[in-house]
Structures are given as structure tokens and as C-alpha cells.
């Protein structure tokens, strides 16, 4: 006989919701006290365990976030006192411990401005370059997203123990490297911010690319990245690239409903039903782009990519797309952040604005690019340009090559179909 799986109690679901809303603030505030992100996360977890033990009996307190914060901070203060007592014994120092300082720390625990400072420190520390990229991603989702290791594992198609280990190791690395819990200043800040933005966009793309795995979990990952981006935009409103990244993600997410067909096959941008685009997200994307522009300065890579996305969003139909402007933006992007993928995209835009021949010239220069060797979009783009030039046999061969490279089954079928259609045509 099988037992039906029991629904978690409503108190547990409430605790889960409160935890997700509050845990970043709690971890951040405690981390400032103990100057150690890993330890702060464990102390916050202790508070969660206390809630799980007490709330089902006592009921959920009126201000559950403050309750968790106080418990976590009290544990942090206890820990600090214990360590100081130990230090004092060792050093045989006679003077009294300044307990007032600790209590004052407790008082400032709920000071909103202080919390925002702490949150920004948390963002920079979790995305510290001393950590590997997967470690940064896992630690960010865990401490800033409030996700469980199981949720992170499912989103990244890996085992829970792998993620748990990754997080443990990341905390240890931060402690061993003596990474201070602070917001970097001066010339270091730009590089560190780039690392933060990279992590958030990577989380977004992991969901957006959907090369494999449960589609809805991956859509959640996109929303998680968007949420992190929106939070960061309020924490660091003076950074144009943060708004650029948010704009880019909002506009890309606006196409979520239109970008897959009924059998899960990807629908290319120009063939999407624009009526299915989410106008609210497009609007928000434009607003973020305007915030970025208002800050002035030369546009960075995220602002440029967002501006390209905005060009597409502005076109009522695919035919209305302002390709000349998009080419201009890709040229700027190729100068600020050159990469073979940017070149490939520029080739597509040039092909649309000035004809397939000129687009093909750019693609042909990329054919021997090692980093694109297994990138299915290279033969796919090349096939498209060749087909438009009437070189059908070559085009069909490119689509077949692209089909062999893609990991997405519906896309593979689509590419095979295009190859077959071209093969039937007289070339």
C-alpha cells in the first residue's frame, strides 16, 4: 500500500515564504557582525531551524522577519562573546568586554539603510572572483535567492550533494582567502561589479537557453535572475550597467511566451507572434534602459545588448525592424566587448540590413574560430545566409551540420526539416 504524500502544513509553507523573503537580509546583517559569509549563513539557518521547531506550536509571529533576524543576531552575538571570552583568557586581558557595543549592533539590525549596505556587501562577497563560476552561482542563489540546495540542483541538472559540497567549499574558500565582507571601492569596484553581473546573467541564461531539463524550473531560474537584478538595481542605482542588465533581462523575458512552439520547438525571434510578448516586461525594460542612459557615460556591453533588444521590442512586425540601427549597436558592442558570438550576431544584422552577401563575408571569417567549433548557431546562420543567396546545396549541408550540434531535440528536427526542404529545391 502506498502512502499518499502529505502536503506540508500551512505553517511550513509560510515559514518557507518568510525565509525566501527575509533570508538575504538576515544573512547579510549577521555577516556584517561576524565578518564571515559562511558562518552568517549557518547562523541564519539556525534561526530557520528554531522557527521550524517553534512556530508550528506557537503560531507565526506578527513580524516573522524580525523574529528570525533577532534569533540569528542573538546567536551571532553569543558566538562573538564566547570567542572574545576565549581570546581574553588566552591573552589574560583584564578589561571588561564592551557589551553595549553588541546591543547597539542588535538595535541597528533593522535599520533599513544599514540593511541595504549589508545586502550589497553580500552580493559582492557571494560573487567574489576568488570563487569558481559554479560556486558563485550556487552561493548567490543560496544566500540571495533563498533557494534550497535541492532547488539549485534541480535547476542546474546536478545532484543535491554536488551543490551542497560546492557551497561548503565556496564558504571555506572565502574564509581561507580572508575575503572581507565589504563593498569594494576604487578601481576594484568595476571588475567586481562585472563579476556580479556575469553571475546574474548566467543564471538568467541557464534558464533562458533551456538546452535541457524541466522547462518550468528553468523559467523559474529566469525569474530568479530578474528578481536579483531588480534588487541590485535598487542597491546600486548609480551603476548604468546594472540597469542595462535588468533592461536586457526584462526584454528577453518578455518573449518567454512566444519563443517556444506547441511541441517545444524554439521559435526564432523574427517568426515570433509579437502579440504574445509581455508588454509589461517590455515597458519595464525600457524604463531600466532610460535609467541607464540618464546616468550618462559611454554605454557598456549590457546597455548595448539591452538597446538591441529594445530595437526588436519596438518593431511592431519583424519587417519593421530597424536593422541599420541594430548594426550600429553591434559595431559598438564589438568594440567594447568583442567576441566571436557578437561577431556572429553582427553578421545576422548586417545580412538583414545590407544583404546576405555582406553578412556571409563576416560569417566566413568566423568559420575557423575555435570557440565556435561546436556552436550550432554558426552553421545555422551561415545556412540561412546561403539559402537567401540561392546556394541551396551548401545551405542544406550547413543546416545538417547545425542539427548535429544542437542539444535541443525540437530544434534539431526543425533544422533537419530546413535541410530537407532545401535539398528538394533545384539548386
Amino acid at each position: 500500500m502506498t502512502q499518499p504524500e502529505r502536503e506540508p502544513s500551512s505553517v511550513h509553507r509560510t515559514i518557507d515564504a518568510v525565509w525566501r523573503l527575509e533570508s538575504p537580509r538576515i544573512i547579510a546583517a549577521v555577516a556584517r557582525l561576524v565578518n564571515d559569509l559562511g558562518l552568517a549563513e549557518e547562523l541564519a539557518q539556525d534561526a530557520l531551524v528554531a522557527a521550524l521547531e517553534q512556530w508550528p506550536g506557537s503560531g507565526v509571529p506578527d513580524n516573522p522577519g524580525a523574529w528570525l533576524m533577532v534569533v540569528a543576531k542573538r546567536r551571532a552575538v553569543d558566538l562573538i562573546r564566547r570567542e572574545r571570552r576565549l581570546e581574553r583568557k588566552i591573552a589574560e586581558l583584564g578589561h571588561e568586554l564592551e557589551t553595549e557595543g553588541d546591543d547597539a549592533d542588535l538595535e541597528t539590525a533593522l535599520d533599513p539603510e544599514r540593511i541595504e549596505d549589508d545586502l550589497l556587501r553580500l552580493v559582492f562577497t557571494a560573487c567574489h572572483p576568488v570563487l569558481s563560476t559554479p560556486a558563485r552561482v550556487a552561493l548567490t542563489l543560496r544566500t540571495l535567492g533563498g533557494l534550497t540546495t535541492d532547488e539549485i540542483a534541480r535547476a542546474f541538472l546536478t545532484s543535491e550533494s554536488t551543490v551542497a559540497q560546492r557551497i561548503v567549499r565556496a564558504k571555506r574558500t572565502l574564509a581561507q582567502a580572508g575575503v572581507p565582507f565589504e563593498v569594494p571601492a576604487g578601481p576594484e569596484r568595476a571588475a567586481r561589479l562585472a563579476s556580479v553581473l556575469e553571475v546574474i546573467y548566467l543564471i538568467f541564461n541557464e534558464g533562458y537557453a533551456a538546452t535541457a531539463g524541466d522547462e518550468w524550473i528553468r523559467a523559474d531560474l529566469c525569474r530568479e535572475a530578474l528578481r536579483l537584478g531588480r534588487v541590485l538595481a535598487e542597491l546600486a542605482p548609480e551603476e548604468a550597467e546594472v540597469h542595462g542588465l535588468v533592461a536586457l533581462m526584462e526584454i528577453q523575458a518578455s518573449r518567454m511566451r512566444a519563443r517556444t512552439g506547441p511541441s517545444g520547438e524554439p521559435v526564432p525571434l523574427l517568426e515570433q507572434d509579437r502579440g504574445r510578448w509581455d508588454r509589461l516586461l517590455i515597458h519595464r525594460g525600457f524604463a531600466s534602459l532610460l535609467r541607464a542612459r540618464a546616468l550618462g557615460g559611454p554605454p557598456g556591453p549590457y546597455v548595448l545588448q539591452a538597446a538591441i533588444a529594445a530595437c526588436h521590442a519596438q518593431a511592431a512586425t519583424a519587417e519593421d525592424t530597424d536593422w541599420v540601427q541594430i548594426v550600429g549597436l553591434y559595431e559598438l558592442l564589438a568594440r567594447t566587448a568583442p567576441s566571436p558570438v557578437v561577431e556572429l550576431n553582427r553578421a545576422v544584422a548586417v545580412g538583414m540590413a545590407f544583404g546576405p552577401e555582406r553578412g556571409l563575408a563576416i560569417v566566413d571569417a568566423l568559420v575557423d574560430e575555435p570557440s565556435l567549433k561546436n556552436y550550432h548557431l554558426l552553421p545555422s546562420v551561415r545556412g540561412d545566409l546561403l539559402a537567401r543567396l540561392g546556394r541551396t546545396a551548401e545551405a542544406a549541408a550547413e543546416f545538417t551540420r547545425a542539427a548535429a550540434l544542437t542539444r535541443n531535440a525540437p530544434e534539431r528536427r526543425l533544422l533537419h526539416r530546413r535541410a530537407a526542404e532545401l535539398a528538394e529545391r533545384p539548386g
Partner: protein
Amino acid sequence: MRFLMMTTDDGSPQEPPSERLEAEMGAFIAEMSKAGVLLATGGLEPGGTYITAKDGKITVTDGPFSESKETVVGFALVEVRSREEAIELSKRFWQIVGDGRGVIKQVFGPEDLPGQ
């Protein structure tokens, strides 16, 4: 998941919100934006225009309507991970506002519609 959180009222005359309440509401809205959950928010006029379609005939009537028991006066569209999160946000709202009534409804996306 998106939820539309609405505040309703029964149309009885109400005192305008105090300056303190308005300031607290502003802070709450800012906090929700900072938490990355607020997509849109707004207040609604008390009356409104009602449209009824019946047997191909469309009737347009201007408010206010004494017969309507409850009418939506304000809304916040939030993007959260669960209904419980929306409820938590709503609890905070009511802790600021005091007495009143509201309703939380999920806004369906493609992922929530069966057979799509």
C-alpha cells in the same frame, strides 16, 4: 507566479489617509520594489464606468453605484515564488494600513494553463 493583490472597499465615505499613513505606504511600496517583487501598482477611482453586454446590446453606465457591495480601490501586481509569499507581503501591507479588506488572485501565465 504573478499575483494581483487588491484592496476593496464597500463604497462608504472614508477619511482620506493621514500623512503618516501615506508615508508608510510609500515606504512599503519602495521596500517591495527593492525586494524585486513589485511589477506595478496603482490606486483606482471610486466610481468608474460599467459596461454590460447583453443579447448584443452594450450598455455603458457611469458610477458611483450604490448597489455594488465591494469595489477594488487599489492594486499591486507582484511576481513571487508562491502564494504564501504574496500572502506574507499582503500581511505587511495590512499591518501598515490597519482595518480593511483585500483579495489576492493569481494572474495566470502560460505555465499555469493546462494543455498549453
